């Protein structure tokens, strides 16, 4: 083992990394749901309640954009909400994860990235058992097509990549900027409001609409909606572009993390 260079990527290191992520994610999930009867399904209650609120307030006003159907509006809001909540919850929890384990990483050799990654994994688990079955069910029910369910993999991967990128970046930057939570809260709010989650894309002024298309969160939400209950699913090149956005976001996040990691240990 040599620490002069970056730790070698070999079988033993990869296995230890996976085991660490698994353990920390498991502990995270255990800690979150201790004493809660609803368990993992608690994660569904948040988007369901919010969907209800949005529908009550905006449902009638916006339903004309959704083929005059309140149900379509409800589904669109729900799909959008689960995407944006997954992203914002995972990345906001990941933000403090490296600093929170500062004393631990000063005692035992642990790669710093396991902490944000395991937060994402814990949220992913919650997403897979809580939200995903609902999306799959809606897709099957609305389209009667198994192919569409398979197409869901593309935006799901994109969402995971974007979240990993944001989580790595925020967790590393928080080491240096301890006022980051306030700023990041604002960033999440901007992403939330500029994504057509509870309003139709059509009401966005045409000049600003480009943002809607490069904002990975809205692109992902849009793909999921179109796959689940659109007239026809988005063409493959559109899905490919979404995945590419995800890869780009993940690459930026990894880059920031690797850059910041070099002197992060001095401030933990």
């Amino acid at each position: 083992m040599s620490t002069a260079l970056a730790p070698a990527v070999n079988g033993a290191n990869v296995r230890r990394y996976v085991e660490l992520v698994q353990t920390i994610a498991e502990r995270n999930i255990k800690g979150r749901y201790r004493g809660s009867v609803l368990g993992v399904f608690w994660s569904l209650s948040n988007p369901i309640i919010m969907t209800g609120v949005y529908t009550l307030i905006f449902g009638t006003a916006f339903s004309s954009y959704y083929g005059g159907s309140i149900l379509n509006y409800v589904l669109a809001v729900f799909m959008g909400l689960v995407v944006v909540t997954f992203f914002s919850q995972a990345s906001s929890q990941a933000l403090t994860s490296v600093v929170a384990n500062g004393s631990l990483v000063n005692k035992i050799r642990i790669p710093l990235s396991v902490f944000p990654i395991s937060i994402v994994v814990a949220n992913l688990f919650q997403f897979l058992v809580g939200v995903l079955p609902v999306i799959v069910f809606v897709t099957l029910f609305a389209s009667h097509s198994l192919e569409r369910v398979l197409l869901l993999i593309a935006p799901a991967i994109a969402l995971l990549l974007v979240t990993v990128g944001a989580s790595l970046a925020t967790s590393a930057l928080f080491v240096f900027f301890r006022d980051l939570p306030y700023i990041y809260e604002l960033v999440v709010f901007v992403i939330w409001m500029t994504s057509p989650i509870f309003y139709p894309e059509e009401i966005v002024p045409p000049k600003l609409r480009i943002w809607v298309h490069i904002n990975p969160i809205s692109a992902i939400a849009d793909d999921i909606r179109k796959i689940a209950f659109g007239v026809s699913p988005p063409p493959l090149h559109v899905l490919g572009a979404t995945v590419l956005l995800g890869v780009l976001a993940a690459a930026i996040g990894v880059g920031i993390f690797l850059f910041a990691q070099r002197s992060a240990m001095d401030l933990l």
Partner: protein
Amino acid sequence: MPPVITLRDVSLWRRTQEEFHYDFKRFIFNLVRGRHRKPNRRRVLDAINLVVQRGEKIGIIGENGSGKTTLLKVICGILTPTKGSMTTAGSIAPLIELGAGFDPQLSLVDNIIYYGLLLGVERRRMREHLDSILNFAELQEYRDEPVKTLSSGMTARLGFAIATEFRSDILILDEVLAVGDEAFARKCRERIDQLWDEDVTILVVSHNLDFILNSCSRGILLEKGTLIHDGLAHEAVLRYKTRVEAQRLGDPSRSPILLIAALHANSKYADRYYAYFDGRRHLISDQDWMRQNRLDDADVVRLDDTALDQIPEGEQVGYPTGVFRS
């Protein structure tokens, strides 16, 4: 047999915290006004060379802030050297500040398994050792309680029990030798003594110089990140005491020196005394040298002579006996 630890010219610079913003707003503000300064860096380890053979027991001493713990962290792979290279062979068990990784909300059993995984022990193996760990820590009846119900002494006992349960090739001890109450501290000593007899390589940081003298064969003295002595534990302790004494006396021009002495060990009043002076070793019985430095027997200040009795007859060791002042 290849060495288990090799450090070649290891230097480490770390960012100092005092000039640090911890503030994104101020960072941007300074950047805009062109006031951004590169953060200060301080050298905490300076060109350390160290080769450790299998089975060596090494004591690391020095003042607070001299880089002892930092050196251990580099060896553990927690910190990466800025310059130079470090290689280790075999598994390392760190024993730095016991109980640091515990989650107070989770049960003892969950914490033991979690801690083991952090140390790199598989889950299944950890389960097999659960009872043995709990028995050693004498905490069987608490196994399903959350860790927060334990007292601090109990927590430290648990940490010690986990970290010493598995045999590793290199054991790192950082001021952890006194754990819990009298009875448990003795148990810990027994376990450590057992490790001492085995082929385990041990690196220990301690301010308990008697412990270093009695338990380590080799001593390393660090000062401001520089390795200033690497040799017999006795000599390292001696030089350390010399330097501490020099500081206590305050006036560097008075050049306090300390005897190394007693090569004929079974005599309390050894016939040959050595002194560290000007970074060299001098034979004190050399009367000319004594006169030259305006020294006489009245300058001897005894530091410690009880330990002289412990040196076996005829053994060739250096041992601290006193301080000279010029």
